């Protein structure tokens, strides 16, 4: 009897150990690049040029790399602010437009609705590099070239097909009866959207916001082509400038610092928003 019990306990322990062991191993694989980058960004200027083993600072903690990064362009703060403005602007505008568009495509009946929707989705198939030149010309005509607003509008445009698709699906998943109940309760138009439907499509909104933020935060090519003024560069361009180095010498410390500056906000945005991916949000509405 006791033998059986012990065997079962041992098996349970082994099972739990295997489960957690695998989890920890996977976590290490995913977290190691972050740890190595962040740690090595704090190495001394001279140490930064040495082979990166061990990756952590051995000769004391230093902010040299960040000072180095700051010496490029208009200063790292300025470029971070540029990136933040563009990314947050893109996320907000994309959410507002795709929310309304998704609602319209999901709930209203109008002529050529499906054709229009397919058209929007079809634009996903156009490689955006191929429309960079026309985009540049259009922006120039509008007087928006070399401006962060112009860049934001381009990013929103690129982001919209996926976002509209996402939001239409989110609205499609909301039972029609909820909307009808709200209409009988006297909620109409904007009130209906904000008070009743918005909380129900929140996971969709969060997805759209995260994608819009990350994509515009990391985007390089359009920013490189459309921005010409040094002080308006976004972080990816700064990093590439840092990577290109000065007089042929690459400041690896500054590169590591740049990568850190770029990735930390993304982590924050994701951790901040992911809790809205609440599962079973719709539970109890119908059935």
């Amino acid at each position, binding site marked *: 009897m006791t033998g059986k019990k012990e065997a079962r306990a041992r098996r349970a322990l082994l099972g739990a150990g295997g489960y957690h062991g695998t989890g920890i191993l996977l976590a290490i694989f995913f977290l190691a690049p972050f740890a190595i980058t962040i740690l090595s960004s704090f190495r001394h200027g001279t140490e930064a040029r040495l082979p990166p083993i061990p990756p952590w600072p051995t000769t004391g903690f230093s902010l040299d790399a960040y000072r180095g990064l700051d010496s490029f362009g208009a200063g790292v703060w300025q470029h971070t602010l540029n990136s933040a403005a563009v990314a947050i602007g893109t996320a907000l505008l994309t959410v507002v437009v795709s929310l309304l568009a998704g609602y319209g495509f999901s709930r209203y009946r109008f002529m050529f609705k499906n054709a229009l929707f397919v058209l929007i989705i079809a634009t996903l198939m156009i490689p955006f590099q191929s429309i960079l030149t026309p985009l540049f010309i259009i922006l120039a005509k509008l007087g928006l070239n070399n401006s962060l607003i112009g860049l934001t509008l381009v990013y929103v445009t690129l982001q919209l097909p996926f976002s509209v698709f996402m939001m239409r699906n989110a609205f499609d998943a909301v039972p029609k009866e909820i909307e009808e*109940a*709200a209409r009988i309760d006297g909620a109409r138009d904007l009130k209906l959207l904000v008070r*009743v439907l918005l909380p129900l499509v929140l996971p969709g909104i969060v997805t759209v916001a995260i994608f819009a933020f990350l994509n515009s935060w990391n985007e390089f090519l359009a920013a490189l082509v459309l921005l010409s003024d040094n002080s308006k560069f976004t972080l990816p361009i700064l990093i590439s400038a840092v990577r290109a180095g000065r007089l042929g010498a690459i400041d690896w410390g500054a590169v590591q610092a740049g990568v850190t500056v770029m990735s930390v906000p993304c982590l924050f945005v994701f951790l901040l928003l992911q809790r809205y991916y609440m599962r079973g949000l719709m539970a109890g509405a119908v059935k």
Partner: protein
Amino acid sequence: MSDNGVQLIEVRKSYGSMEVIHGVNLSIPDGAFVVFVGPSGCGKSTLLRMIAGLEEVTDGEIAIKGRDVTDVDPSQRGIAMVFQSYALYPHMTVRDNLAFGLKMQRTDKAVIDERVAAAAAILKIEQLLDRRPGQLSGGQRQRVAIGRAIVRQPEVFLFDEPLSNLDAELRVSMRVEIARLHRELGNTMIYVTHDQTEAMTLADVIVVLRDGRVEQAGPPRTVYEDPDNAFVAGFIGSPRMNLLDAVWRGNGKVEIAGQVEAAPISGAGLVPGDKVTFGLRPEHLIVGATDGIMARVDVLEYLGGTRYLYCQLTDGQPLIVEYRDGPDVRSGDTITLGCPENRRYIFNESGARIR
């Protein structure tokens, strides 16, 4: 009951060129419990949703309490609706679900609290007020949905198959509860269902619909005992009425499967030789009559209190008999079936009742 509850005048509904409601006229007395029944696709839900204002009226007029509401917003019609799927707001607590409509009307906070408390007391959901719909059982959710209707203090309650998502036992107890609610509140209630038991037990007036037309409207007893046509006769009652092909022989006689039976009608408008339908309810057939229709028992279903005999007439027409007491019957037996003359129904070829 005064006569100005809900009035439908020549109400029509089309989707594109397809008309689905064909000029419905209906006058529902104030305070009545009206049940719309009919097979699926008959337009009963559409009609209800038109009264609610969720579907536009293509033509005709809808009046509630003497006020034309045909083009009035749903929230201004003085109605409240309970949906089959409950349609609770999942992100709000039960209390907020109940209060939402009143908040939208900018009702005073004290009044809201009072009405929510009153509705919760009527439905015995006081202890659930701070939960969310996701934490409730099906029956509790349906109570909340009904509560949301009560707090609005509507002139008319609309129920769209409110019990079809509940299990059988809960359905019976909620049915009783809805009847109690009607007695306590005294409002006009319009109730859509495809469940005959719900229709028969709850209704003051049953409205039988088919293909967007009212086939018959009347008290349950009238609809059951005195159906206007073969469709209503077949739809109301379970198991359904046996509708047998017969031939009118004149002089109050019809011929079914080679046998001549008395038919309690004068036969005005019929010529001997006309095809008619002879309707007999399974529960009115008497097994072992000395003179009557001969039938062979195919299958026998034993249900405890009663037995259903699935029979065939000599010409192969199927017939169901409800059999309570008497000598044992086995499948393969031939039985003689009688029926009281006032329980025999004759319909002409187009299905209309001949009285």
